[in-house]
């Protein structure tokens, strides 16, 4: 009889941006059901925290329009009734102004806020008693912090059992591999961990490499697009859109094919200037750019650009400035212009349709729907009446009529993000939001222009080079796992892999084959000083008529040339075939994603640490009945105190 049942287990995985959690393990493992933004708002009293922003409502409008002012039902909450009946508060579930993010770069920077967040997550799940908790630990957390967390969980939630699991290790479990290099791309940081035989190499592990996560990508976009009037929020949404893509090394940006070999990083000026070429004649001849229609169309394009620079993208300030009518009139005019243009040139329309069919990476321009929170906030701040609010929203929202176009953009078969799939109430479908269409040029491919990929590639190289068992390294290079929500940007993984390969792959030396009979990585033993026996050539049997040494001499240094299974040397145990102390990597591969989790397949394996935690929770809490000491029980805690956790964590 296992001590716990599947449906009792709680898994919490805190992240800098999103904290995911789940109560109970389903029959087939699913992505986390509870998703909470990792932020809290300071409450009235210092040291206390609220999960949503609490706005103090103006007294005069409070009584009349309060109910409908935002979409969140039941947000009304009266506080401080004893002092003043007139002061009312409401919760704003959308706004994040003034939020405190307790996790930064994976480190816990504000403990009371973090504890409040965990408490909020815990209460959201509304668990019964007798629920064991498995917490996914960020690599940046120190042993002392593990103790602190242990103390918190036992004393606050009175949990009967508590386990800590390293995020990288959990990812390993999810993929079902014992040896791998896990590259976890988070919000502000990247962790790179070499794991061999389920043991993370703590020495030389790259923990919380700053400036490399999803936020850096947003900033990369922002640095390219700021001159066009886009702000951070727009770039963040652009990054999450399918039109934003990272291209592998050597793939040129559409519209600037002539620059294909040039360095994106060292030529920001060139790249930026080519963006301006967009409406000029030069770009028209470039790859993938459909020729534009007669004069009118280009005029419209230029017009929009000009307006962008004047700050039309910042509708919020226009509205705040009371010039909303004016702005709406202008928009109307533009729409009419566009319609005229389309009528004028059916050729242009056809060309546009053709451009739509091109893959995103070949199209020079693409547009996406932007959800303008700032505008919404401004409108709320203006204290319009219920009707006024709805009118303004309807007038400003460009969403619905452009929906069709947006749809064609999204037909690339990209899996919907977990956020959208799991939490219907978030992101795009949030009620009451105002959407506007924004068109961007090739800058959308330059999210990594800040050198993010190079930095991560270097971190991977450092991590694997610091594994002192030289013979394990090639195995680690062959088992890269790139995960984390920062890597969700389209094309990120391939781009990173190709960056690593371009820079670190050791190609077969032309010197070896002709000067030595056997490649040295087979004949010479390990760097440990222990003599590794020459591989026994027994098992190859009659499967191949080729002299194995000759075959090895020609192919051993570039194993990708070998047909899997056809080479006798490959069939030797992995131990002896990796006994070289030659240079690594001679090949670099990603680990194949696991295939038997249908629910995860749909959303991608970016949060595979959570999947791994589900697998691990099943094993440590249920299957092996506590034999493996994968968790600490309440009596253990009473005996040993918080420091005992080190004996139990995975």
């Amino acid at each position: 009889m296992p001590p716990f049942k599947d449906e009792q287990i709680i898994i919490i995985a805190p992240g800098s941006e999103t904290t995911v959690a789940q109560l109970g393990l389903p029959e087939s493992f699913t992505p986390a059901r509870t998703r909470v933004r990792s932020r809290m708002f300071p409450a009235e009293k210092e040291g206390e925290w609220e999960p949503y922003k609490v706005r103090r409502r103006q007294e005069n409008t409070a009584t009349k329009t309060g109910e409908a002012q935002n979409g969140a039902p039941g947000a009304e909450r009266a506080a401080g009734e004893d002092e003043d009946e007139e002061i009312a508060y409401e919760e704003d579930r959308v706004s994040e102004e003034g939020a405190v993010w307790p996790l930064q770069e994976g480190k816990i920077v504000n403990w009371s806020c973090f504890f409040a967040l965990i408490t909020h997550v815990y209460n959201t799940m509304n668990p019964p008693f007798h629920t064991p908790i498995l917490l996914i630990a960020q690599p940046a957390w120190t042993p002392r912090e593990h103790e602190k967390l242990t103390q918190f969980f036992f004393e606050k939630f009175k949990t009967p059992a508590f386990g800590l699991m390293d995020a990288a290790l959990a990812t390993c479990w999810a993929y079902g591999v014992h040896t791998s290099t896990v590259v976890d791309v988070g919000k502000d940081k990247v962790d790179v961990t070499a794991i061999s035989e389920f043991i993370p190499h703590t020495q030389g592990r790259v923990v919380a490499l700053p400036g490399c996560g999803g936020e850096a990508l947003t900033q990369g976009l922002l640095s390219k697009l700021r001159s066009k009037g886009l702000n951070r929020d727009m770039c963040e949404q652009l990054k999450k859109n399918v039109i934003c893509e990272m291209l592998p090394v050597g793939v040129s940006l559409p519209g600037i094919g002539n620059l294909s070999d040039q360095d994106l990083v060292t030529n920001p000026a060139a790249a930026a200037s080519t963006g301006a070429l967009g409406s000029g004649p030069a770009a028209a001849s470039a790859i993938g750019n459909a020729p534009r229609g007669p004069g009118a169309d280009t005029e419209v394009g230029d017009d929009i650009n000009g307006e962008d620079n004047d700050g039309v993208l910042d509708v919020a300030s226009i509205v705040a400035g009371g010039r909303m009518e004016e702005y709406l009139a202008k928009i109307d005019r533009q729409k009419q212009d566009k319609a005229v243009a389309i009528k004028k040139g059916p050729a242009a329309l056809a060309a546009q349709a053709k451009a739509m069919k091109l893959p995103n990476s070949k199209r020079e321009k693409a547009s996406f729907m932007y959800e303008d929170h700032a505008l919404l906030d401004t409108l709320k701040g203006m204290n319009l009446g219920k009707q006024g609010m709805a009118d303004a929203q309807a007038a400003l929202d460009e969403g619905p009529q452009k929906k069709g176009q947006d749809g064609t953009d999204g037909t690339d078969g990209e899996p919907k993000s977990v956020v959208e799939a799991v939490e219907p109430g978030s992101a795009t479908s949030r009620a009451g939001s105002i959407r506007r269409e924004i068109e961007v040029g090739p800058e959308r491919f330059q999210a990594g222009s800040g050198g993010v990929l190079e930095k991560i590639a270097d971190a991977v190289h450092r991590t694997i080079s610091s594994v002192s068992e030289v013979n394990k390294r090639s195995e680690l290079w062959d088992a890269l796992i790139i995960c984390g929500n920062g890597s969700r940007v389209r094309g990120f993984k391939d781009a990173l892999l190709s960056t690593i390969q371009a820079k670190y792959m050791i190609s077969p030396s032309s010197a070896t084959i002709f000067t030595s009979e056997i490649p040295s990585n087979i004949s010479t033993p390990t760097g440990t000083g222990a003599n590794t026996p020459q591989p026994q050539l027994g098992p190859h049997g009659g499967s191949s008529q080729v002299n194995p040494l000759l075959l090895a001499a020609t192919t051993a240094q570039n194993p990708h040339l070998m047909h899997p299974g056809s080479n006798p040397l490959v069939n030797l145990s992995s131990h002896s075939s990796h006994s070289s102390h030659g240079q690594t990597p001679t090949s670099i591969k990603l680990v194949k994603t696991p295939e038997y989790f249908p629910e995860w397949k749909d959303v991608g394996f970016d949060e595979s640490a959570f999947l791994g935690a589900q697998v691990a929770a099943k094993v440590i809490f249920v299957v092996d009945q506590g034999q493996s000491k994968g968790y600490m029980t309440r009596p253990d805690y009473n005996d040993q105190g918080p420091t005992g956790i080190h004996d139990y964590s995975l």
Partner: protein
Amino acid sequence: MNIPNSSTAPNAGEYAGDEVSAIVLDPGYSTTRAGFAGEDVPKSVCPSFYGQIDKDSSSHYLFGENAIHDPLGNLQIKNPWGSDGIVENWDTATKVWEYAITSRLTGSRPSHPAKNGLNDANTNGNGESVDVDMEGLENLENTEKPLGDSPLLMTEPGWNSVKAREKYIEIAMEEWGTPAFYVQKTGVLAAFASGKASGIVIDVGASHTSITPVLDGMVLRKGVQKSPLAGNFVSNQIRLIFKQAQPEIPLTPHYLVKSKTQVDAGTPAQATYRTYDIPPLDSFRRNEEERVLTEFKESVVEVWSGNGRFSNAANEEMAARLPGRPFEMPDGWNQLFGAERYRAAEGLFDAGAALHDADNPKPKDEHTIPRLIQAAVQQVDADQRPLLLSNIVVTGGSTLLYKFNERLNNELNVIYPSTRNKLIAPGPLVERKYAAWIGGSILASLGSFHQLWISRKEYEEHGTNIVEKRCR
């Protein structure tokens, strides 16, 4: 799961230890090791190098692996250790060590107890709360010191000066606020790690090679030998090999290469290079080059372990016939290294075989490892020598050079043909690299060790020179 591994601490009571959660700090030239006593590997291994950016007459310091490999403009890489194997720059050494402790062990300085959410359980019941209270009066916000509740065991090289030792305890007590302190020599600890109370410890590190005779857990101070022929010396030898090759072999570190193209062996590299608007300074480049050299040491360099020395003409010929090993530079240049690969480490054993030029003078003969061992053994009573020679503990990262132990064994048998010479070189690499730390971890978790700690009270009563009386 329950397989004891590097991240699980041994069970309480395994070392007869009671829970004091002491921290063991083993600072070295290349890396600084820190971890909790009782564990089998240091959880925190940080580079001792640090970055410095001078801007507007003030210096900005950067610590940790991530920072020192980030090619920032005007970044220079420095090391607090002096060329004599004693800490030179105390301010930054303190910061480097503190970083090693706080980044991976204790976490950054906790916020004020009233705010950290644990005030209800803020037990400080080990009797050491006195100093916290006293300090607390002055500045409530900033008094939580990194080691407020952990005793600290530090290691020191065998030749550490009295001044340096006193500085150690001063830093630990004043800056870090540790309740108890002890300092022990690396040699003794490395012997402990191998389970020996007596023996000769040969420690080949990055900046120095040291030979420490240990008898019954005590260092024979006059027998301690050190020389600068160690890992960095081998690196410089490799640089010389590159420089003296025809044509000269270019050494381009990774950060300057954008992507490389495959080229034939020996032909010039055809890589695309990166340029920086404000490049880091030369010391950064040198540190990055060291990464390439480390790779070269791991995959190409071999210590000659045949008959006699490598410089014998017959041996060179024999080496030339052995299969060479290929090496590819970050920029794609590649070549097969034949007999040269034996030359890089030969200088450790044979001063005459070392390469030299104007910047790298010829090493002195008495600095080679065999001479050092001889000199060390010479200082020991004749009747103790066989005991020591049968317990020769080999430790330090540079002993991982391929075939190092075979060669050392050969050399020893030439010098001492009549005794039973036994090398003790742990197989697991972590034990070889971190032997001194592991010894410290064992020592600090021994129940009987607790009487040796220098407590804060004693320090306050006697001052810094108590370390000279208590830690021998």
